């Protein structure tokens, strides 16, 4: 395998996930929060979270199309993904 840098399109699909009942403190919420394995259109898997949708098994369907989005927190901005159909 060759190692290379490239600009990813931000298109992805949902490969697998869990729904953490007590999310990491960064999220500042008591509600459930998805931890996801996301398959980039270009191939690689990434750990991420699916945002801007219900955090339920019904809303989070495997293979659903996703788009990259950036979620700002106090000190960091984190790469997340959201359902692609939410995009204009």
């Amino acid at each position: 395998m060759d190692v290379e840098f490239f600009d990813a399109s931000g298109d992805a699909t949902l490969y697998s996930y869990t729904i953490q009942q007590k999310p990491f403190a960064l999220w500042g919420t008591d509600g459930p929060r998805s931890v996801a394995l996301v398959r980039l259109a270009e191939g690689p898997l990434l750990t991420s979270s699916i945002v801007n949708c219900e955090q339920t098994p019904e809303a989070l369907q495997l293979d659903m199309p996703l788009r990259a989005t950036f979620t700002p927190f106090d000190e960091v901005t984190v790469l997340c993904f959201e359902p692609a159909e939410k995009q204009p």
Partner: protein
Amino acid sequence: MIPPGATAIVGAAESTEIGTVPDMSSVGLAIDAAANAMRDAGITAADIDGFTCGYFPVADMSRQLGIFPSWADNTVVGGCSWMFQLRNAVAAIHAGYCNTVLIVYGESGKSTRGLGQSFDAGQRGGTGQQFDMFYSGGQAAATFTLPVVRYQHEYGLTDEELAVGAVSQREWAVDVPRATLRESTSVEEVLASPMIAWPIRRAMCCLVSDAGGALVVTSADRAKDYPKPPVYVLGTGGALEAGVMSPGGVREPLRPEFIRTSGEAAFTSSGTTHADIDHLMIYDAFIHNPIFGLEGLGFVEYGEGGHFIAEGHTAPGGKLPMNTSGGGLSYAHTGAYGMLCMLESIRQVRGEAANQVADVDIALCHGWGGYWSACSTLIFGTSVP
């Protein structure tokens, strides 16, 4: 290639107490277990010239035991570190670097007594910490288990079938005096336990325990002079993957290549086949781990592991007895379970397990580290083939 049975385990012990041990630190548990293993082998510190520990400063720990080794190893690859260290010890003894190695482990996982008790799955300073910790805080139940939903989807494994693994292991633990959880359970009970990280419920997660363990390994020639029957190391394997908590993750999460690499190395170096294995341990930090182990090691085809367990083949009375101590789910799980996993294999080969399986001549032990960053496979036997 190191010949099968070139070395043997001649001393093996856990800490005097396991489970909840609030009056001992991690170091204390390790030293207690080391003393027990030396007593089990009928030797003293002066007989040991090789030393490994992991997660402790290696020279400090050996010095506290009065051991001044000429060979040492401190490989840390997560929960299977002590399995890697045993593999390295086998090679060191075979190479003539030393004769007799003490492998030491202790972890105050539940009571968290002692400094430096930070089990970080080897993520510190790595790309996993840099990029992946934001999503989960590193919670094992939400990350190590990431492949589960995909597996259930691809292979049609229901929650009820998944839950059987926890019930089977509890059936084993019922008869194990040192096991933490000994009450029979049911699929309904497992699925009624609190949700931790959907679809993973509390009864699908390992315990958090205090325990220590230690092994004495020496050459086959010397092993004959020890009081206990030798447990020969027939074959070893090990491999690294990326880990589910590293960017890129496991290359193919439903067919993790590193399991196959490690298993094939162990089978090849031991000269054994699957049909020879009388007893099996597969490190169960979470309920899905044995499924992936059975498949990756080649005991069943990909996609069959979940149903194999659901059909009861690994439970008491099944054709492939697995995790007979009760495993990480019911026996004990400190944080890094590899040593405890090996010790049950060794007890079974010695014929001294609480749940002794009849006629165990060859046993296989498979463990993980760092959320599938590493794995190791060891095959033990009563005799040299």
